[in-house]
């Protein structure tokens, strides 16, 4: 199995895509609300920005009066105070040291923090000191947010960080989606199909062993070959299952694997007794069938169901969840923030268009669009693989299991004169449903031929009790015989199953193929968005210098 070493958790975020989007939506609304509040509350923010002046400011280390943001025009000569106040961390207020300004401007969370920490002796605990420094940084940041240049700086940092974060997320999302698709193809779906292959093969072996035993003495070589081939196929499938299945299920696979030699030993003993003419051989062949039916097959069916559940769970990771969901969510938040920033700047600087920010918005929009298109394309290809490959694979494999099971029941029924009609009816019903969907008319016809042929020995037993003739008929190899019709069905269904499986693998492969150029384009546009945004913001910042 290719890529057998790949193992990932099923949902690394632990939340559903819907929940993730809900959280992102709340975040967006919260941010939007905050921006609106600050926009409405800051009357000064709509004021005309100060003219850049060479300045007569003499104060460097000490913050001289910076522009009285947010209240009205700034007096000439105080422009350099912007840089000073930024350096010292003081917020607008235009008077005193940075420390005093910070104390004055501290509000909200900062005030609460100071109030909460007022009873602690800072000289005795370095941790508390560090906390105080952090609080100071927080206060300075909050203070910066009160000034227009500070806000521009924050926006600049935000644009850069967002671009970096979004680039990381975009790359990770693409890699992970490819990994998920590969895991689905090489492990999850492969395990389900290999388990079904094992299921069908072991039932085929059961049917061949039982039918061959009925012949008495040395079993017909054709039946022996069918048995040997089926056992070889079953063990191969089980080995592949063992390599790719979830670690939690490996013990169950080992238990099944341990039963196979036990089963073949019982069949071998039955043959040995049969060759010597000892009727105890029939006890051994019955015991072999019972071992399969009571111990091997129930565990196999349980594993099949579990493996399909694992596939479905993993497939959900292809959706807008995980890294991609976060990327898109944050991307749209960034987009919204950029748009609000432009509106604020238009009001603040009385210029309708900031080319840098418009370009940044366009680049971000393009990168998000490309991401969405790429993701949708991957999902579409994966969906096509499921519909055109996996779904028919499961149907055909399931039908094979039913038919092989019916044949095994039929052979066992010949020993005990049982009625296997219901098993064939069930297999026929399953096959007809696949015919409607996938046009397996040939397969249905072959199955019909087989059912008709297998009816002959059953009728011989049921209506005439001619047991010897029934056994001869069950082991006949000629045209239209039970075995010939069964082989035709088995070969064609295997061919169709292989075809459907190949379709799934190749279609899923197109979903796996990492669209590197797309990823590069997404990251490039994000970087472009950051550069353009920074340029646009720096143009306005320079107006303060």
């Amino acid at each position, binding site marked *: 199995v290719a890529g057998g070493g790949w193992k990932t958790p099923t949902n690394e975020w632990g939340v559903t895509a819907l929940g993730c989007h809900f959280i992102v939506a709340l975040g967006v609304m919260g941010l939007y609300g905050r921006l609106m509040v600050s926009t409405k509350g800051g009357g000064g923010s709509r004021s005309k920005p100060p003219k850049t002046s060479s300045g007569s400011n003499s104060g460097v280390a000490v913050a001289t009066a910076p522009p009285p943001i947010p209240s009205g025009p700034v007096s000439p000569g105080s422009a350099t105070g912007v840089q000073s106040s930024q350096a010292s961390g003081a917020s607008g207020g235009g008077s005193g040291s940075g420390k005093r300004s910070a104390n004055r401007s501290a509000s909200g969370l900062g005030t609460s923090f100071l109030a909460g920490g007022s009873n602690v002796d800072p000289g005795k605990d370095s941790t508390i000191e560090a906390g105080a420094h952090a609080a100071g940084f927080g206060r300075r940041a909050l203070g910066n947010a009160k000034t227009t240049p500070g806000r521009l700086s924050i926006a600049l940092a935000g644009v850069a960080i967002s671009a970096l974060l979004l680039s990381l997320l975009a790359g990770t999302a693409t890699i992970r989606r490819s990994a998920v698709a590969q895991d689905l193809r090489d492990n999850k779906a492969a395990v389900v199909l290999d388990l079904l292959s094992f299921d069908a093969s072991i039932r085929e072996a059961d049917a061949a062993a039982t039918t061959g035993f009925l*012949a*008495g003495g040395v079993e017909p070589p054709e039946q022996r070959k069918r048995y040997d081939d089926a056992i070889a196929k079953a063990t191969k499938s089980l080995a592949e299952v063992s390599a790719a299945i979830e670690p939690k299920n490996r013990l169950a696979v080992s238990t099944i694997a341990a039963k196979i030699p036990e089963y073949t030993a019982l069949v071998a003993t039955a043959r040995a007794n049969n060759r010597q003419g000892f*009727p*105890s051989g029939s006890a051994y062949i019955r015991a072999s069938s019972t071992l399969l039916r009571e111990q091997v097959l129930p565990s196999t069916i349980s594993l*099949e169901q579990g493996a399909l559940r694992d596939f479905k769970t993993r497939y959900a990771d292809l959706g807008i969840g995980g890294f991609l969901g976060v990327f898109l969510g944050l991307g749209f938040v960034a987009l919204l923030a950029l748009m609000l920033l432009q*509106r604020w700047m238009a009001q603040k600087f009385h210029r309708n268009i900031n080319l840098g920010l418009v370009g940044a918005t366009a680049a971000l929009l393009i990168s998000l669009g490309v991401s969405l298109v790429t*993701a949708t394309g991957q999902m579409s290809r994966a969906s096509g693989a499921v519909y055109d490959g996996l779904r028919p694979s499961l149907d055909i494999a399931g039908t094979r299991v039913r038919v092989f099971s019916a044949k095994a029941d039929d052979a066992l029924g010949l020993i*005990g004169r049982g009625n296997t009609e219901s098993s064939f009816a069930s297999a026929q019903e399953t096959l007809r449903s696949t015919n409607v969907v996938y046009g397996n008319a040939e397969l249905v016809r072959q199955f019909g031929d087989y059912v008709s042929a297998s009816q002959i020995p059953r009728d011989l037993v049921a209506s005439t009790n001619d047991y010897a003739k029934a056994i001869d008929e069950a082991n006949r190899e000629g045209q239209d015989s039970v075995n010939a019709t069964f082989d035709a069905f088995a070969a064609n269904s295997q061919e169709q199953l292989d075809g459907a499986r190949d379709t799934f693998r190749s279609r899923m492969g197109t979903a796996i193929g990492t669209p590197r150029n797309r990823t590069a384009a997404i990251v490039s546009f994000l970087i472009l968005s950051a550069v353009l945004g920074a340029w646009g913001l720096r143009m306005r910042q320079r107006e303060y210098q």
Partner: protein
Amino acid sequence: MSMVRTNRERRLLRSLSVVLAGASLLGACASSDVADLKLSSPDAKVEQSTVTFLRPTIDDPDCIDPKESYSPTAVGFTTDAPVSGRLAAIRKRGFLLAGVDQDTYLFGYRSSTSKEIEGFDIDMLKAVAKRIFKSDDPKYLRLKAIKYADRIGSLVRGPNNNGVDIVADTFTMNCARWSLINFSSQYYDAAQKILVLGSSAAKNLADLSGKKVCAAKGSTSVDNLRDNNPAVLIVEVADQTDCLLKLQSSQIDAISTDDTILLGLAAQDPTLKLLPDAFSPEPYGLGLPKGDKTFTRFVNSVLEEMRTNGEWKRLYTKWIGSKTNTDADPPPAKYRAEVVG
């Protein structure tokens, strides 16, 4: 101006909601692709016995000695074509349908060479069919393998209801069974014994207290074991050969059933040994439909002839004597005292 801004804000929020909803839908789509994928593997069909064990609970009030059957020399009886009853139905149908075992070596088993069911019991049936149809053409006898526990049930149901006309299957005669079916006169004298591994220290049933002893479900062997040593742990199986598999794989300590059957099992595995002590007589008779005295008398007339013309002895030698180096005479027939008229 404020109103305009609010509308813009609303439009922005609406747009964002649409985008997020679209993204959520894409996520939901991924799950819906596989939601209805299902497997159609059928549950493993474990061979279930469809046999309802018909177990007689009371003795037949007319049964004084279970070995006693209906005399073929009764006044008014003739082996010529009867006009009614089961015998007439068999002749009309064109074959005798007999219930047999296919796993009891030497008595009724499927030969791997001839692929036919053969044995001492089967030859008894061939003699009956030959007399009914006055021909030894095999087409007049059809054999149906039945479970041990279904021997009585098959006779009670009859050939028109998935049953049979006659049963030859190491069938022990007792008064409880007489309450549901008829028996022919005794055609074999068996006894219940014990088969153990060659290495076993057990010498008799008493030595097997607390040990697992296997017997076929529906056989008198189970009752005899309980009666003779309640301390043994009885393991019941569908077929006698299942006991052999269990003994060979050390799942049980011994097999107890009729010596005839045990001889057949021992012949398949030379490492086993048959203990000499017999603790219950097991007279064999052919099972017949209840109340059909004509058919019973007819079969008894066939057995009587086999006793006297040496056919019985020839068959014994063929199937049992040659394998066990023993010689035997047919058990004497015993008939019920019947009031004429």
